[in-house]
């Protein structure tokens, strides 16, 4: 034991420079994982913490239409003490508010919420001036409003405002409302008494009022309550949710970025591992003689391996500590740079857990990736000291039991790591399969290269012939360089390819002209008047689209059941807003079936969006029975469309052929680019509202602008991380090439004594490295295309487009880098006097 530690310490003391790269690989890998995981976890935690507060209840039932007596009776049967401790009902609607005084300008979309005691079940109101909330404030036409409304309409507490035709008096101003947690808002919040909303007719036919019944349950009752409510309400088109599920919904939006980050962390870690394996291999190669000597003086292979393993462990620990320090620095940077686009209550501290994880990962990677090269220690024969023979036995001897076992352990650990880091068994398996396939492919490519060049010896140029023989000489590094460089190139190009696709997805400017104002609830007879006002304001003809609301009641005559609703990816239980028109929009393409002709048809015919295909068996030829406000309507699916949502002003999942819906109850919507000036926008809204009080104008100008800003930040973050991976890859590439140079030094020295000029030597180097780089880069690129396609499609669920610049640039850059690094690291070969080299050998 003493010998092992003594030996490890002495070797480290003498050889730390050569192992510096090992240390860096671990440091960077661990740093990336710890920093990324901490960011992911802290963001997740920050978002989760908001969930229960956001829902203000343990569970709720919600519906977009008035409660039927039947539904209420069913709820009554389940939701009673002792399971339910308290309940309250609320109605929410988006509508317009304006000053009650008709001479004052301005109108504003508001999010109206009618409540009754004991709302809120969780959370509390915070009112400006420290006032305590009391439901009495809302009685007799009172309203509590968000400060933004006062600002927009120029009102203050005590003033009156009109919503629809009802007058409300502003009694208090919100500082924070219960359940406030961000999310998309169409306008400032206004709280009123629920009764007053019903009385004012704000919840009548055609309005998009959302009704909710909130429940507070005894401690463990949430799951039971939700399950029983779901069973009871199976036939009713209502939603039952618990705060737990609402957390899941929230995280789903976040998952995409999270997966990309986790995968990137894994990639950096594996890159580090490849670097570690490379260093160890070369290190052992250089220590061959020392190992043989130790064997001569009585050390067993096991003890020597243990000594080097101890060294690896020490380096792993030191590297991990460096990594943790790097992660801390990265978090300080993130806090400074990206705080604005991350949740407000997010922490930027490294948790003790993350630190231990980093340490464990670093040591694990050090040991795992150095284990295979370290096993070569056993095969080094001490008789190399007596003669210059370098023979490690036949190739099959390399696949002995310890080696196979270590290989299996490495694969299993990598799999476990991938599953853990990517947070999914499937993704982990994919990643590992990709890595394995690429390794196999690279090995084959290396083998093929050696095979081909061995037969291409009759090349005219001396330099080229030397380069080629260098590739297949005994003890050549062809396989090692191709494997290490190829895997590095593969991982980096995969990340860059994904990054490029992810950025395309986020690219705001490519989304065409996004509308910044929406007009909804325009009645058919108001369309002409509204269109005129729009034309006068914007100078462009208005495009008003008719919409009808409906649900899917049955598919091919079979009623959809609850089970299908739940499995239907949200496609079946929802309410559809559909339109009808004779033509496709620019951003739509037919992917199956045939689109109808220009002329209307009395036979109901629909086109569905790609995403609906397969849900509940939906496809071309299926018959869907829609429930249009109680009336049943059966239509045949005649085509499936692909909609490019990035280029859409309005998008519809279901499209009807003209001829069916013209007489159904409907309203029109319009998407326009309103004036940029805030005052002009307010005047426009008021102009519409004064004449058509039922029309709602949604001004998303600020939203559009802030989305642009957030996307800009995400873009920057993704680019930054991609750049980081590129840097790591380059570093590892540099390392793995620089470390194979010792082989060339001797050969070059001999050639020099035989009269080779530096020019010739340089040409040999360039040709040899260039060939290696090109083969490694090409195979890496090919595999990167496959992996990025799979990840984009199945994991991030974003459209994948081939990025030729990444692939071509990647191959060229890999080859160039290999050549440059190879030439630079061999520079001393060219300038050194040959005698020194030959003597040293």
């Amino acid at each position, binding site marked *: 034991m003493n010998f092992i530690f003594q030996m490890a310490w*002495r070797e480290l003391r003498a050889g730390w420079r050569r192992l510096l790269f090992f240390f860096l690989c671990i440091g960077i890998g661990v740093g990336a994982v710890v920093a990324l995981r901490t960011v992911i976890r802290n963001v997740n935690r920050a978002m989760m913490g908001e969930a229960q507060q956001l829902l203000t209840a343990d569970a709720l039932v919600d519906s977009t239409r008035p409660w039927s007596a039947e539904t209420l009776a069913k709820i009554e049967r389940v939701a009673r003490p002792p399971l339910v401790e308290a309940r309250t009902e609320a109605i929410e609607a988006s509508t317009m508010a304006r000053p009650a005084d008709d001479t004052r300008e301005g109108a504003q979309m508001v999010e109206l919420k009618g409540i009754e005691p004991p709302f809120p079940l969780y959370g509390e109101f915070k009112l400006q001036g420290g006032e305590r909330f009391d439901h009495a404030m809302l009685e007799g036409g009172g309203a509590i409003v968000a400060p933004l409304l006062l600002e927009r309409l120029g009102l203050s507490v005590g003033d009156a405002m009109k919503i629809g035709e009802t007058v409300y008096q502003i009694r208090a101003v919100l500082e924070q409302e219960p359940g406030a947690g961000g999310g998309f808002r169409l306008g400032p919040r206004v709280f009123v008494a629920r009764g007053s909303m019903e009385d004012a007719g704000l919840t009548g036919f055609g309005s998009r009022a959302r009704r909710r019944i909130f429940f507070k349950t005894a401690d463990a009752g949430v799951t039971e309550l939700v399950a029983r409510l779901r069973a009871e309400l199976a036939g009713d088109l209502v939603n039952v949710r618990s705060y737990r599920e609402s957390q899941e919904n929230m995280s789903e939006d976040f998952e995409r970025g999270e997966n990309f980050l986790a995968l990137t962390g894994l990639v950096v870690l594996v890159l580090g591992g490849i670097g570690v394996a490379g260093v160890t291999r070369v290190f052992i190669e250089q220590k061959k003689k020392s190992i043989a*000597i*130790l064997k*001569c003086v*009585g050390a067993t292979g096991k003890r020597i391996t243990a000594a080097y393993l101890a060294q690896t462990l020490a380096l792993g620990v030191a590297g991990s500590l460096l990594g943790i320090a790097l992660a801390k620095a990265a978090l300080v940077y993130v806090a400074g740079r990206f705080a604005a686009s991350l949740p407000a209550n997010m922490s930027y501290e490294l948790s003790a857990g993350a630190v231990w994880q980093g340490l464990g990962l670093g040591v694990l990677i050090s040991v795992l990736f150095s284990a295979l090269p370290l096993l070569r220690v056993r095969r080094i024969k001490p008789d190399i000291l*007596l003669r210059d023979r370098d023979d490690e036995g036949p190739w099959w001897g390399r696949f002995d039991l310890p080696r196979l076992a270590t290989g299996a352990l490495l694969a299993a650990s990598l799999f476990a790591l991938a599953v853990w880091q990517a947070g999914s068994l499937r993704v982990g398996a994919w990643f590992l399969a990709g890595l394995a396939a690429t390794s196999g492919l690279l090995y084959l490519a290396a083998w093929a290269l050696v095979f081909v060049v061995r037969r291409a010896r009759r090349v005219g140029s001396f330099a080229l012939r030397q380069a080629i023989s260098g590739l297949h000489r005994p003890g050549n590094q062809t396989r090692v360089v191709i494997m290490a460089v190829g895997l590095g190139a593969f991982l980096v190009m995969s990340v860059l390819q994904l990054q490029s696709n992810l950025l395309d997805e986020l690219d705001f400017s490519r989304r065409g002209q996004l509308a910044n104002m929406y007009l909804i609830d325009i009645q058919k007879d108001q369309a002409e008047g509204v269109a005129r006002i729009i034309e006068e304001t914007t100078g462009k003809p208005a495009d008003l689209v008719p919409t009808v609301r409906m649900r899917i009641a049955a598919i091919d005559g079979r009623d959809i059941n609850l089970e299908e609703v739940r499995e239907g990816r949200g496609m079946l239980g929802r309410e559809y807003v559909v339109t009808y028109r004779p033509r496709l929009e620019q951003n739509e393409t037919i992917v199956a079936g045939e689109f109808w002709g220009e002329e209307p048809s009395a036979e109901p015919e629909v086109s569905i969006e790609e995403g609906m295909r397969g849900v509940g068996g939906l496809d071309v030829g299926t018959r869907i029975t829609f429930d249009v406000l109680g009336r049943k309507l059966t239509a045949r699916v005649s085509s499936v469309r692909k909609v490019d949502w990035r280029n859409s002003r309005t998008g519809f999942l279901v499209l009807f052929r003209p001829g069916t819906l013209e007489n159904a109850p409907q309203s029109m919507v319009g998407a326009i680019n309103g004036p940029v000036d805030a005052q002009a926008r307010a005047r426009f809204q008021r102009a519409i509202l004064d004449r058509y009080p039922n029309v709602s104008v949604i001004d998303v100008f600020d939203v559009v602008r802030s989305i642009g800003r957030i996307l800009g930040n995400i873009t920057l973050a993704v680019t930054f991380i991609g750049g980081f991976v590129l840097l790591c890859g380059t570093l590892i590439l540099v390392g793995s090439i620089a470390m194979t140079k010792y082989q060339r030094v001797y050969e070059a020295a001999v050639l020099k004594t035989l009269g080779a000029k530096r020019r010739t030597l340089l040409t040999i180097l360039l040709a040899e490295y260039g060939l290696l780089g090109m083969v490694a880069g090409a195979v890496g690129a090919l595999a990167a295309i496959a992996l990025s396609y799979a990840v984009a499609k199945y994991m991030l669920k974003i459209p994948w487009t081939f990025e030729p610049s990444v692939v071509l640039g990647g191959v060229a850059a890999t080859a160039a880098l290999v050549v440059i690094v190879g030439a630079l690291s061999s520079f001393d070969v060219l300038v050194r006097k040959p005698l020194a080299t030959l003597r040293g050998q």
Partner: protein
Amino acid sequence: MTIPTGQFIAVVGPSGSGKSTLLGLVAGLDSPTSGEIRIDGREITGIGEDALAELRGVKIGIVFQSFHLIPSLTAFENVLVPMEIAGARGAAEKARRLLEDVDLTARAHHYPSQLSGGEQQRVAIARAFSNNPAILLADEPTGNLDSRNGRHVFDLMIEMNRRRGATLVLVTHDHELAALADRRISLRDGRVVSDSGDAGEAETARDEFEAEGLEAARK
């Protein structure tokens, strides 16, 4: 072929005659394709790499033509290593004494690259003796040294070996050195072509050699 305990035998022959191979086989550095090797009556063919290593550690000391010190260790540590591997007690003290024997106390904490060829070979000799081996194998120990240094190193090795009474197998080109052995074996193309057990001749040569050595010491 049998080498009795305590015998000094020289193996001679031209390049490629199999001298080093023979030495490697005796040291268990290589395994024979046919035949068998016994050390102290124990069969060593096919006993496994690790068992061989352990055997070498306690029974066999080797001196190579090109020294083969571990470059990352100091002279002192190079001598220390075999004892540490064997787990011997008082290793540091013994290493100091061995370096004293080869007259290198002052250079104990230098690395091999900072030592001359003769010094390096003396460290290698000290290392070879560190576990009191019963057998000392030397492969052209003076082949990489100039004649003066070579003589000194050889002198030292013979002297230290005599004090310990170990069996010595010397592979050499140098007939002058070979003449000092108890027994000479000539190899050609891997076969023994002559085995002179002529002790008398060797005895005389050794006496002459020792006389010279003593004279050198007096000067």
